[in-house]
């Protein structure tokens, strides 16, 4: 099926299967906004985004544990 949406303010047209997940179409499971609302793209079909505005932002996650491991002198437990 053909869906049309606006992705990061650019009109896009995709051919997808009815069962394609939005996360599969965008190849991400994080940071997807549909009509300005944060959504879970792995629980949403791409077809649900037809005609909608989609924003997709890469999210960088910085965890304290990672910071500890990357520190010059790693903390030992």
């Amino acid at each position, binding site marked *: *099926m053909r869906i049309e949406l606006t992705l990061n303010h650019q009109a896009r047209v995709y051919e997808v*299967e*009815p*069962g*394609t*997940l939005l996360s*599969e179409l965008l190849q991400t499971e994080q940071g997807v906004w549909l009509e300005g*609302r*944060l*959504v*879970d793209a792995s*629980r*949403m*079909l791409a*077809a*649900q985004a*037809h*005609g909608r505005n989609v924003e997709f932002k890469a999210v960088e996650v910085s965890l304290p544990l990672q910071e500890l491991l990357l520190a010059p002198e790693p903390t030992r437990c």
Partner: protein
Amino acid sequence: MIRQLEEFLYPQSLAEAVQKKHEYGEAAAPIAGGTEIVPNLPPEIRCLIDLTRLGLDYIEDEAECLRIGATTTMHQLAVSPAVAKLASGVLSSSSCQGWPTEVRNTATLGGNLVGGGPFADSPPALLALDAEVVVARLGGEERVPIQDFFVDYRRTAVGQGILKEIQIPRPAAAARGVFLKFGRSPVDQALVNLAVTMEMDNGLCSKVRIALGAIGRTPQRILEAERALLEKPLESDVIDNVVSIVTELVDPVLDLRASADYRRELAGVLTRRALLQIAS
């Protein structure tokens, strides 16, 4: 990828959606947020009917009742001042508090009801508020009292129709309500959830609803416990009696989350907590 899906339809009107549901029968299901149906699509479903373009995401505050469209999201419910005014905000409190933002932004009240899961949080609140649901069918609209809506485990009275809206009669201004949920974490399904609404007149209970979820095959009111409260003050011996009625009458399911005995005990504990909260 959900390979069993063959079609995704965008009806232009509720009448067209009902017509499509009738044509496809058991092979089609309505979809709004999709947080329930997308990860748990029943094997017989081949077609999904999108309801999110039909203008059913409204909360209308009318003189006699509050009308809530079926595709109103849990976030809309949680932040609505009109919903917050109903019996101390009992429905607001049941609107998936603690869930991730991306789920509350998408999950809808209609989906929470039509899923028919006994663990859902909004059904006890709607039972305690004497809500009615409006189901659109081929022959017109049907109004179903919420206590008749949950037929069996994951089966509701919506059948081949489509849930259009939920109507909540306006409770008395002084009506108080409490929603309580006990789960392993706020995100987990309830082990037991409960909603109580109450009106008092000269220190005596003049109207009360006690509704429990996650305990049987469907959410349910405990009518005998309600009767035991009528015309009584909210005092400790009355509360003790109501708690013992609740624990005797419930017939809890056991599953991997909790034993039947644990759920029975929880039902009593939550009932006591709710009544004490209202009394305070």
